[in-house]
């Protein structure tokens, strides 16, 4: 059976869904971040697969940008987590509600 972009898309959707579930269910914010990385990777797989399908490298260019943005996001996000942890001694997202109301 030939592997079509549809396969990659479904794989990507599955990976993305796992990421979504991680974001929605876990309470450790670091793991939530990791789940977000999973989602980004799912998107990347999609982009690369379709770039190959249409024989156009623009998709890969976008992956490069996604990776750059992911790096920036990780740096700042983890910085925030560390700063928060220093003040509140927790990484539980349920306890991060000081800005509510």
């Amino acid at each position, binding site marked *: 059976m030939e592997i079509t972009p549809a396969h990659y898309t479904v794989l990507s959707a599955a990976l993305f869904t796992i990421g*979504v579930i991680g*974001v*929605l*269910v876990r309470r450790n914010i670091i793991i939530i971040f990791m789940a977000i990385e999973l989602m980004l990777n799912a998107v990347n797989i999609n982009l690369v697969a379709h770039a190959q399908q249409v024989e156009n490298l623009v998709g890969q260019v976008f992956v490069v940008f996604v990776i750059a943005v992911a790096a920036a996001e990780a740096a700042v996000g983890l910085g925030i987590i560390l700063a928060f942890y220093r003040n509140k001694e927790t990484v539980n*997202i*349920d306890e*991060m*509600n000081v*800005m*509510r*109301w």
Partner: protein
Amino acid sequence: MDLIWLIPVLPGIGAALNGLLGIRYFSKPVAAAIACATMGGALLLSIFAFAQLLGAEHREHVVTLAHWIPPIPLQTVDGLGAFEAPWAFRLDPLSGMMILIVSGIGFLIHLYSSSYMDHEPRGGYVRFFCYLNLFCFFMLTLVLGSTFLVMFVGWEGVGLCSYLLIGFWYHKKSAADAGKKAFVVNRVGDFGFVLGVFLIFFTFGTIDFREVAEAASQMPVESAAFGVLSTICLLLFVGAVGKSAQIPLYVWLPDAMEGPTPVSALIHAATMVTAGVYMVGRNAVLFSHAPMVMTIVAVVGGVTALMAATIGLVQTDIKKVLAYSTVSQLGYMFLATGVGAFGAGAFHLMTHAFFKALLFLGSGSVIHAMNDEQDMQKMGNMKLYMPTTFITMFVGALAIAGVPGLSGFFSKDEILAKTFVASPWLWGLAVVTAGMTAFYMFRLIFMTFFGEYRGPKWGGDAEGQADGDHAAAADDHGHDGAHVWHGPHESPKLMTVPLMILAVGAAVAGYVGIPPIIGDFVGVGNAIEHFLEPSFVAESAALAEEGEHAVAHLSHVVEFGLMAFSVLIAGLGIALAYHLYVRRPKRAVELAENWAGAHRVLTNKYYVDEAYNSTVIKGTMGSARGLWAVDRNVVDGAVNGAGWLTRALSWVSHVLDKYVVDGLVNLAAWICAEGSYIFRRGQTGLIQNYAVATLFGVFACATAFLVVRFMG
């Protein structure tokens, strides 16, 4: 000549340095050095500029430094005019002479002051030099200014410096009051001056001296009617009267003697007070076109000369004598300008600057020697203790008395001659004044330097000790605060050298203006009059028509007679003084007792101050009180009534606000607050719930897509 703007600016820099930094940081020698150096620089520049001016073909040079006020459209008599004021300086013969006088005498007085003011604490010393430099800055601006406005800057500036310096010892109430008096009296004059400048702009559309003079020279001479030119001149003359201490505004000058003596010499004898004469001379063309005002000027000058001289006869304070003498001599200058002899006035201005500065500095030296004693009755026989001061002052007195060969003789004689042509009555006044001048000056000399020593005793030192010791003592006694007096002594070199230079000046300055009678004989013309002429005369057709009477010359015989007569009068005055104060001192006292009424009037200066006090000052105060009462009862009452009304209204408004408006607002807020309870439940602060909501939105979209695709 393009650097003439530096002449005023240099002392300005000195003042800024001393004023901004010096009072906190500079030591006495540094401050004095800065002040003297800047003045010396100004003097050098003035000499160079003057030399170049002598060599120049066209004896007028204008340097525009910057545009101060850009052209502003203002209403004039012929439509809109552009009011424009550049920072422009004008060097012509008149201002050239003035900058030489101001910077030269200013420099000498700076030198003199550096020693004279040595008793001052450091701060006061530096402050003094700051003021002095500032004064020179403004005075040079005044004389170099090319427009009325620049001149006015200097005019007001010197007034300010005069105020500051008169009140230099501000802790002394009399000094502070004298400064205030000078300032207020000057305001009256300045008011006239400013009005005059306004009228000039309104009439001519410009305030540049040259342009105004050219415009005025095209207008007819107002010999019959009192026209606009006459009004301008009268207003300007009011300014001159204030600044140059003429009747009725002379009262501030005697009081101004409260200031330090170098200040009196520089400001209140040599330079500032002559600004009025300079200003009238500067506007000679205008004044020539207003003969009626000229008459007023001449009469005011003559009467002032005589009146001040009579007061001077009986004063016992050495500086007061000199002050009244100054007023009197200024009267002379106005007399000269009033009869159209602008050159003679300016000439006298110059010679007077020399000998009066000399006399003031000499008196300062004496006062210094007498431990700040100013009363001549407590002096006497000072020639023994301070020969240099005596000789130089004696030269000055001879010069002012008009003894032939010295400067005062030439200038005074020229004024007398010109006055005789214009009006023998005024000449009579002037001659009597000349006699009195000789008398009171030599009364001063004789009371101070001759006779017996009448002053207080001093400890320890034997009388008549060698002068050198005292000079040495004078050098070091300035250093300690508790200044112990060792008896009268000669002043230090820094003070006597300027005296000597000025004495030489007083002796020889007259030779630039040798009168025709002698000049023709020796073959020398009247250099200064010829030199100054371009400043006073414009190409005036109108004037040329009526010019005959102004330029009429005297025959040599008459002139010689007049000269001989005035010399005789002066000699009589000197002789009388010698008789009364050296030969028979008791006779003077008897005379005063016999003529007690007149003596009292003169001693009290004709009760002018009292008269002003009871009329002008009382009147002003009374009306002020009246206005105050009106203010308090009527105006305040109205204001308070308005206030009460406002409060009453605001109370009503407050009630409305509190119960009606606030009620509505609170109601709205209450509704929001109650309503928000329902919605607040959704705001859990759980970010994942929000994400679920987002996901639900995506889900809904996808479902909608599917539904549309497959069902629809």
